[in-house]
């Protein structure tokens, strides 16, 4: 097990609604350094909304969110957070950008306004591409790659920032199942290297095999420590009442 240290994400009684509908209700949880957290729940349960609140793309109606011990309203150190969005494989496939240019975006905040990427920044880009096994594709156009390859490029972009926290929203949607296995191996490797991970998914089986803590989301959030295995009770919170746990043998 990891030695758990400082709190990286802290939600306290957070509420958020779109118009009249409450999307996130009284949510409290915390994530500590080095954890590999799975966030599961059915479609429309509020998973992506929680992620967007965490990234300050949305503002909570009430409650408090802390990132790395700082109130999110004052938090400015976004370089610490890498984000791979849900729609990563659904971007404009005709966009004129090479794989290298896309991953470079991960270093923009570090380079600063008006300055080109330094040699050091470029080395980080190359290193991130190497980590996801996409270095040989650096000069290819992003739109010419397969969905799985594109997803790895977006992970490389998030890794290039050298994040302490990596948030992945449904990263394997549209990705070939054969590639998914190596993808989760990569995530485990990153977690071992000290990166805190939040993996959002509706695929309970995959998540439960890989993570140490489970956040079950269904407008509210239930937290389950599953480092010693997962029980049906851990999951029914999110999928009640239809949920049937399917054993996976690998």
């Amino acid at each position, binding site marked *: 097990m990891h030695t758990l240290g400082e709190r990286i994400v802290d939600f306290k009684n957070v509420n958020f609604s779109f118009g009249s509908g409450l999307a996130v209700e009284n949510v409290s949880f915390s994530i500590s350094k080095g954890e590999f957290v799975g966030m599961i729940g059915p479609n429309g349960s509020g998973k992506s909304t929680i992620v967007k609140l965490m*990234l*300050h*793309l949305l503002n909570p109606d009430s409650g408090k969110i802390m990132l790395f011990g700082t109130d999110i309203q004052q938090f*400015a150190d*976004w*370089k610490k*957070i890498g*984000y791979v*969005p849900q729609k990563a494989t659904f*971007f*404009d496939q*005709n*966009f*004129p*950008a*090479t794989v*290298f*240019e*896309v991953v470079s*975006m*991960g270093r*923009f*905040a570090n*380079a600063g*306004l*008006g300055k080109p990427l330094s040699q050091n920044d470029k080395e980080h880009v190359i290193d991130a591409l190497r980590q996801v096994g996409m270095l040989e594709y650096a*000069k290819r*156009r992003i739109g010419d790659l397969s969905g799985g390859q594109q997803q790895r490029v977006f992970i490389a972009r998030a890794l290039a*920032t050298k994040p302490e926290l990596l948030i992945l929203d449904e990263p394997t949607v549209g990705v070939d199942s054969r590639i998914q296995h190596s993808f989760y191996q990569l995530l485990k490797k990153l977690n071992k290297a000290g990166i805190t991970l939040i993996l959002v998914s509706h695929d309970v089986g995959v998540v439960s095999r890989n993570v140490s803590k489970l956040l079950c989301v269904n407008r509210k959030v239930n937290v389950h420590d599953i480092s010693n295995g997962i029980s049906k009770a851990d999951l029914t919170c999110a999928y009640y009442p239809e949920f049937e746990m399917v054993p996976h043998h690998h």
Partner: protein
Amino acid sequence: MIDILEYGFMQRALIAGMMIAVICSTIGLFLVLRRMSMLGDGLAHISFGGIAAGMFFGFYPVLSALIFSVLSALGIQKLRSMKVYGDAAIAIFFSFGLALGVVLVSMSNGFNSDLFSYLFGSILAVGVTDLIIIAGLGIGTMLILAIFYKELFFIAFDEECAKASGINVENINSVLVVLAAVAVVLSMKVVGILLVSSFMVIPASTALLLRSGFRNSIFLSIGIAVFSVIAGLTLSFYADIAAGGAVVTVLVSIFAMVLLYKKLGSK
């Protein structure tokens, strides 16, 4: 080609045309990728209102057009942030500028011929003062583009991730539309209000057909625009046809040729 360069007015036309080609084709790539191709056209029509107001009230028309164009660009941006669709926001300001222009023209009888030169452009009449204004504002525009290049690129690719990485997306978007407004006003004299957006949309769209990376697409866009200015002005000199129209015809011809080449190549 040597004959052309012997004439001062052609030298000025070429310099002004090439500077505008560089500015508009660079901004244009960002606009086309953001699905804001019609912004240039909209701002040009708004500038028509500004030109008419300047002439009516006795200001320097380019200055009043610049003020109208920049304020409208920010207004369009504001409407977009208030969830009015981007194309509708452009159409609203577009209509207002044109309506204002028409009203002011109908209220006066004296400046219709001057107005005509802004509508269709008069690149061969570019004076030294015009050249200085174009160079000054043009260099400023390119410098600001260079400063925000990385952020503009990130936002064009993925606005949400750009925001999550800490970029102030609203402010950078405002910078882009203001630069577009300045570029439109600078281009009016050269290609005219009715053809301004061609410089923003056609080189960028042609570059996109060539399926390159981002930096290379910018260079391609600039190259196509600059070549079209040189070819169009040469054509207009020898064939004695309207310069603005000749330049835009070359732009469209290049687009059509690249499209055809791509179509044949993919079979």
